[in-house]
């Protein structure tokens, strides 16, 4: 009996002793951009020539795109290449971690490529320099002319591995390209890569176009244009170039958007000064009326699960944002702040709604939770509107116009992007003036 007691006691004593561990809580860190070294991809000497592409510079060029992508996020700090300490081919096999740490890099990207038999084979590795180990390695094969997309896909993979969140580099933006004087603007539909490259024009500019939006598979675009001098919602297939008027409405239709499953279009239809929200099934062409109110209801946007629609309405006097179920029931006002609210857009993550706010002659782009709480205004300017989400719900793209003189001089419209934290406001590169951007989802999905 005594022995057992003794053992028990010893046990308690030892357990207690083993708990004698000092714990320190770390509740804060820094949000400084992560220093990352992106080594040029090594070009295999066995590579063949390929028409129209300078193979020897391809390694440099791909790493340059990755670098630009990362710099634009504001979350990474790509280090200068002249400080790099190892040749690309050797680094790709096994980097000397301590040397790379010396230049204060925390992560390293290496890779190599080979062009053979009309195919481009790329392989890359992401290294954790502090832990001295490989974090990710991917290889893929494609046609050489796709090399820009390869760079974007690599960027997405690295971004996802380092932030825990999907990337948004292998995406496109559709927008309205504008040219000419202010009172005689020519507006064309244009599409470009997210970094401003590969711009293509989808319409000729004979008719005014407005508010283009992608469908979930990025193959179709819905937008507003004029048909017999009446604004109407159109549908455009990007691959084939065919255009269609949506529905046979006896009046003007505008502000279209796809449902998250891509099967419906939700839009406004106006008649006799009253506008309401309608949906149309693209297969059956069945039109359904969603709101029925004497006020102006417009700018509908589905939640990503398709269960709710956010829209704006002036039913309470000034224009405010409302949320309802997708069948039109349970309408609830969510904005109560001073000023006018418009263009609600549901985030792809489902947690936030982006909007434009006008107050005292100034325009704001902001986000709030889906119940209207936690409003945060991200940016303020003379005129800006039409926010659109990046596919991961982290960045907003919108357009901003400058104030024109009496004869329309000094007027410009440009695309801008901003992080939902309110940091990292940047102008997007476009060939012409631009407005009404819409961000596609990831192309490689």
């Amino acid at each position, binding site marked *: 009996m005594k022995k057992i007691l003794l053992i028990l006691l010893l046990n308690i004593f030892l357990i207690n002793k083993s708990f004698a561990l*000092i714990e320190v809580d770390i509740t804060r860190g820094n949000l400084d951009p992560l220093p990352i070294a992106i080594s040029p991809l090594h070009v295999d000497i066995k590579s063949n020539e390929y028409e129209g592409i300078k193979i020897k510079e391809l390694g440099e060029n791909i790493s340059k795109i990755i670098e630009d992508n990362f710099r634009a996020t504001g979350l990474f700090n790509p280090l200068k290449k002249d400080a790099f300490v190892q040749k690309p081919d050797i680094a790709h096999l096994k980097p000397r971690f301590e040397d790379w740490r010396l230049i204060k890099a925390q992560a390293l990207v290496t890779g190599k490529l080979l062009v053979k038999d009309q195919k481009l084979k790329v392989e890359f590795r992401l290294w*954790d320099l502090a832990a001295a180990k490989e974090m990710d390695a991917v290889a893929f094969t494609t046609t050489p002319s796709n090399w820009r997309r390869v760079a974007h896909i690599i960027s997405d993979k690295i971004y996802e591995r380092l932030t825990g969140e999907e990337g948004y580099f292998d995406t496109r933006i559709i927008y309205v390209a504008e040219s000419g004087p202010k009172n005689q603007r020519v507006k064309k539909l244009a599409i470009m890569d997210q970094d401003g490259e590969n711009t293509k024009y989808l319409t000729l500019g004979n008719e005014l176009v407005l508010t283009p939006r992608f469908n979930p598979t990025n193959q179709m675009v819905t937008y507003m244009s004029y048909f017999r001098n009446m604004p109407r919602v159109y549908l455009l297939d990007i691959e084939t170039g065919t255009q269609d008027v949506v529905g046979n409405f006896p009046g003007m239709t505008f502000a279209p958007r796809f449902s998250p499953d891509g099967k419906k279009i939700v839009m406004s239809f106006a008649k006799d000064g009253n506008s309401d929200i309608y949906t149309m099934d693209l297969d059956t062409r069945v039109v359904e009326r969603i709101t029925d109110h004497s006020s102006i209801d417009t700018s509908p946007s589905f939640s990503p699960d398709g269960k709710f629609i956010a829209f704006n309405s002036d039913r309470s006097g000034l224009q405010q944002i409302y949320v309802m179920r997708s069948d039109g029931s349970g309408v609830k006002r969510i904005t109560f702040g001073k000023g006018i609210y418009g263009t609600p857009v549901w985030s792809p993550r489902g947690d936030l709604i982006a909007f434009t706010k006008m107050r005292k002659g100034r325009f704001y782009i902001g986000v709030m939770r889906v119940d209207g709480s936690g409003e945060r205004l991200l940016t303020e300017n003379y005129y800006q509107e039409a926010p659109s989400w990046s596919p991961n719900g982290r960045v907003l793209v919108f357009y901003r116009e400058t104030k024109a003189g009496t004869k329309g001089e000094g007027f410009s419209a440009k695309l801008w992007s901003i992080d939902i934290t309110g940091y990292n406001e940047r102008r997007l590169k476009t060939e012409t003036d631009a407005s009404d951007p819409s961000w596609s989802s990831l192309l490689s999905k």
Partner: protein
Amino acid sequence: MIRSLIYSISFHSVIALLTILSLPFMLRDPIDLPPIVSVELIQITDKTSIPYAPKARKIIEETKKKEEERLVSEQAPPAAKAKEKPDRIPLPNEKKEEKQIIKKKQNPEEVKPEIRQASEFEKKEIIDTNQIAALIDKAKEEEAVEQKKTKKITQSSQKNSFASGLTLSQEDALRAQIFGCWSVPLGLPYDENLLVRIKLKLKKDGTIIKSEILDHQRMNKPGQKFYKVLAESALRAVRLCQPLKVPPTGYDKWKDLQLNFNPTEMLQG
């Protein structure tokens, strides 16, 4: 007539006098601004880890020895001590109580007067540290919350020292150092448990011999991708910070160290 005039004058003058005397008080702003308290930030390492006076150390060591002897030989249950609140430095009278509890269970002759002496000495010294600790607690409420969590003083460390292995400023120094090294990944969800616990084995100079993520299995669970990214970022922070800013003394206390990384507060703020 004259009399009533005198009355009138005297009454009026009294009222006038009262008015003159009292009105300025009424005019004065009734709001009393609280006095401005100037706060001086000082290094408190010396005060939170007061070295024992040589004489006192001898006495304490003697009593400690005796306590240990007793514990082993007479099987005094240490459970009584475990009840103590782990979040603060034990007050001297609490110590006394403990000892009394132990006393009851043991031979009364065993209790030597030195014990009392020691505790009296402790009293003098500790009161000072406690007050300082309390002040710091008030000044840094946040810190206090953290302290509550972190300072799980176990029985053995209580016996050896008054506080845990690290003093407040030592802990702060370490924390501040790691704050600087930790790049928090941004894609973290707001509504998940984001605690990453890393256990370290350290060398005397603060470099790391071994590091281990305690909830390792969670990293590879489906839907917990963010956790892997978060855990890796924490591990990277520790490695980048090497050598850690550890105190020059007391290696035995901090050679094993656990860091609890939790960015929840930061993301919400």
